[in-house]
């Protein structure tokens, strides 16, 4: 009953060589990426790794994730058994778990037996799911079934192996089978059960067959791992350790000096971590199931973007290592391995993909890097963006309206200019609040509420400039950089430290993006300020308003997912109407985008269903009288969409308007 080290050892060495070669081939490609520091705050990183990799936090966010959780932890436990197996194959009878003290061996053997059973059950469930209800149709790959089959083989072989060893021991010791197996069942329930069923005369042959079946399956697994999507077994844990600790709601700055390249048009322009991401993706498809572009039938599929980056890297790696020209373009219509321009422009930068990814892959920054390449290095973009870019650069607002009209919204109001000595807050009105006729009402409501609460505030008036959010998300970093520098310089000169914004896009840009320019502002979204004023008793509601009827709240991506503000707008609505707003099916961190983020506000929506209509239909399921928003872009998308859906009997109101209705009317 001895394994043959003389046969096993060379096979093992060969397998390890294949494994090492596979890993090296891929990991050496990662080193083609650009430098990026992902080793700061090691303590926090370890915590993140424990939470997301070992705790499987994101995996468990979906019911099916439990299945993966079982496979993952079974694997960790079975690593002990497999290490024993390999050592035993090399040095028979020298290293055996059974030689451990009994108090240690007993629970270990029990855990291994149970873990094997759970793993077997889990891979069976996984295979059935893939056959009958795959997460997405293309998930029925040979690759997936092969690995599931391999794991199942490993488990079955391991049971048989243990059972035959138990039975052989029983025969050799001459123990009473009934009492022996009864004791054994407490130790290794599954293997002991099987031991009772094995024919005593064929034990040796069964043992040898099971041993080799296990050996072959294990070695095949080792060889196959690095060349398949199951590479994630190796990369997911480090990927969770290396993820961006701050929310990926900004993009890195670019340095505008002659000779630099801008954005990513060739795969090795990505950072090494971006490339590691591509080898971490398991193609679970959770990103595409939450992506507003994918869901509404646009060409973008975040899973495919990450996959294409990997395929491109594998195809071009050899050439790139020799500083040669890539064989497949990163951006193009060349199928697998290339990302189409259409899909790059379809992204709303809503961040749902990143929120859903169990292994913390950062999709959005990669897409924006490709946009940067298209805009900055090739000047190629959907034609409707030409006006936007020129308006932003020339007149510092998306519509190209004369900057002198920025204060028209408040021409009937008595509003102070911001002054560091006499006003505490700057109310940064934003372009939509200043120029868009519907959103001007929100600005007026805010102004009235601020006065009512006795807040000391002022505006920059005609000197206010666009924050640059849209151009940054659209990849026009050059123009954003100019706008950000000007704004930062003005804020510093004017002594601005505390800013109120009514637009989540201004909010995130001033708060997160301008930090890269050395400006730390205390930025507060108007929903948070209103909530605080209510809590502090500075806004006293004598009555609640019935004007809004039943309300439903829509989370703005840049307020919610990108900045974690979920409760404040809900609290304001509840205080003003006396009732918590109802929730759409997808809410808070899994809310569905209105379709306007990432500069999509200024672009045509081609093909598929309209994103705003999809969201409106979801809102209408709650039969609201009023859809409440906290973002001017969401406001526009809902107002427009409700007309298209012939449902403009439903009102759209910003939280400030809801509050003003209760307080002022």
């Amino acid at each position, binding site marked *: 009953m001895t394994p043959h080290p003389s046969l096993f050892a060379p096979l093992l060495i060969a397998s390890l060589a294949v494994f090492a070669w596979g890993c090296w081939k891929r990991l050496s490609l990662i080193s083609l990426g650009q430098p990026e520091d992902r080793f700061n705050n090691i303590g926090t990183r370890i915590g993140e790794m424990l939470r997301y990799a070992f705790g499987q936090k994101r995996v468990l966010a979906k019911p099916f994730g439990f299945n993966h959780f079982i496979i993952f932890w079974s694997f960790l436990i079975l690593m002990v058994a497999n290490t024993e197996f390999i050592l035993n194959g090399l040095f028979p009878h020298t290293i055996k778990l059974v030689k451990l003290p009994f108090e240690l061996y007993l629970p270990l053997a029990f855990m291994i037996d149970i873990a094997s059973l759970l793993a077997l059950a889990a891979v069976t469930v996984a295979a059935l799911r893939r056959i009958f209800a795959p997460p997405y149709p293309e998930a029925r790959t040979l690759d997936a079934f092969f690995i599931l089959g391999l794991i199942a083989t490993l488990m079955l072989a391991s049971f048989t192996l243990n059972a035959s060893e138990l039975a052989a021991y029983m025969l050799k010791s001459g123990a009473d089978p009934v009492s022996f197996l009864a004791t054994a069942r407490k130790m290794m329930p599954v293997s002991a059960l099987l031991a009772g069923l094995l024919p005593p005369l064929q034990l040796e042959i069964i043992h040898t067959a099971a041993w080799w079946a296990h050996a072959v399956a294990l070695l095949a697994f080792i060889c196959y791992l690095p060349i398949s999507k199951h590479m994630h077994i190796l990369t997911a844990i480090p990927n969770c350790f290396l993820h961006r600790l701050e929310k990926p709601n900004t993009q890195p700055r670019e340095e505008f*000096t*002659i000779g630099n390249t801008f954005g990513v048009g060739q795969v090795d322009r990505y950072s090494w971590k971006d490339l590691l991401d591509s080898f971490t993706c398991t193609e679970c498809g959770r990103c595409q199931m939450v992506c507003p572009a994918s869901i509404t039938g646009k060409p973008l599929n975040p899973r495919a973007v990450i996959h294409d980056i990997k395929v491109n890297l594998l195809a071009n790696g050899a050439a790139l290592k020799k500083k040669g020209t890539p064989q497949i373009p990163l951006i193009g219509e060349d199928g697998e391995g290339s990302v189409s321009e259409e899909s790059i422009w379809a992204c709303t930068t809503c961040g749902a993909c990143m929120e859903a990814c169990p292994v913390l892959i950062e999709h959005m920054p990669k897409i924006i890097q490709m946009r940067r390449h298209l805009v900055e290095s*090739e*000047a190629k*973009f959907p*034609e409707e963006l030409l006006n936007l870019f020129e308006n932003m650069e*020339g*007149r510092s607002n998306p519509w190209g309206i004369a900057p002198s009209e920025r204060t028209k919204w408040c021409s009937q109001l008595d509003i102070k200019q911001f002054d560091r000595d006499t006003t505490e807050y700057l109310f940064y009105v934003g372009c939509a609040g200043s120029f868009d006729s519907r959103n001007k009402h929100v600005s007026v409501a805010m102004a009235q509420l601020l006065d009512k609460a006795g807040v000391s505030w002022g505006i920059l008036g005609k000197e206010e400039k666009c924050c640059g959010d849209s151009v940054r998300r659209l990849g026009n970093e050059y123009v954003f950089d100019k706008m950000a520098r000007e704004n930062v310089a003005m804020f510093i000169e004017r002594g601005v430290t505390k800013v109120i914004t009514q637009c989540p896009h201004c909010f995130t840009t001033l708060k997160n993006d301008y930090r890269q320019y050395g400006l730390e502002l205390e930025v507060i979204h108007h929903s948070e300020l209103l909530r605080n004023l209510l809590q502090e008793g500075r806004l006293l509601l004598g009555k609640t308003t019935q004007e809004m009827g039943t309300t439903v709240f829509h989370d703005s991506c840049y307020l919610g997912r990108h900045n974690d503000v979920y409760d404040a707008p809900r609290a304001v609505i509840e205080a003003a109407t006396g009732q918590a707003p109802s929730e759409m099916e997808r809410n808070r961190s899994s809310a569905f985008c209105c379709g306007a983020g990432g500069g999509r506000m200024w672009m045509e929506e081609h093909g598929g269903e309209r994103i705003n209509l999809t969201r409106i239909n979801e809102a209408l399921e709650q039969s609201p009288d009023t859809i409440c928003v906290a973002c001017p872009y969401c406001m526009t998308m809902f107002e427009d969409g409700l007309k298209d859906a012939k449902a403009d009997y439903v009102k759209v109101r910003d939280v400030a308007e809801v509050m003003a209705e209760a307080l002022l009317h």
Partner: protein
Amino acid sequence: MLIVVCIKQVPDTTQVQIDPVTNTLVREGIPFIVNPYDTHALEEALRLKDRLGCKIAAISMGPPNAEATLKKALALGIDHAILLSDRVFGGADTLATSTVLAAAIAKLHAEVDEVGLVLCGKQTIDGDTAQVGPGIASRLNYRQLTLVDKIISLDLSAKKIRVSRKLEGRHEIVEAPLPAMLTVVRELNRPRYPKVQMRLAAAEAVVEVWDNKILQLDEQKIGLKGSPTWVSKIFSPERDKGEILGDGYADPAGAAALLIDKLMAKDMLPL
């Protein structure tokens, strides 16, 4: 062959206001832009360069800060940028302006390369005369093809150009020998957007400045002295004040009813 594009820096007219006292344009704080029609002329030159490989020179007459306009052109890919700037050029009308521009084109022709085409916007958005392009053509004795919305063919060996002119309600196909001066309309093309690399290079580039020491023009024929026309007054046309009907905020339906009555009374609302 050299293509010369004439471009002008103009105030962003959407932001221009007229000083009610002096009746002149208030230019303080008003950003300058490239005259929008000129951007189409520039784009067409760039397309011809992409196709035929010819070189492009952009010239602009204006104060030293008009250099920014030429840098924008450099960022788009022109080969030579020349600013025609001198105090004695100032205050020029269309006649004096075209004299200076024509002299510069003649100099480019003599010193850089044979000029085959001169491209201008159909007019500027500040002066709106549409006379400078034709003025250049007259002074240089080039064929003038105005209001071009399409270059149908350009045959360099036969030295011929065929264009479509956009006239009111019709198009005219015209053929002319080179050299020719074209003024272009917006329908001609969609201007491109500059690449960052080119912008950075343009920012560093030095724009050549030609003053009258270089052009050696008779001072009686240029600038204010050489301008038979001058602007005596600029004003916004008076318009009758409108009338506010009802209260659209408090009673939108009532206000609408008043409007309908009024329009029906004037027989402007056929039912």
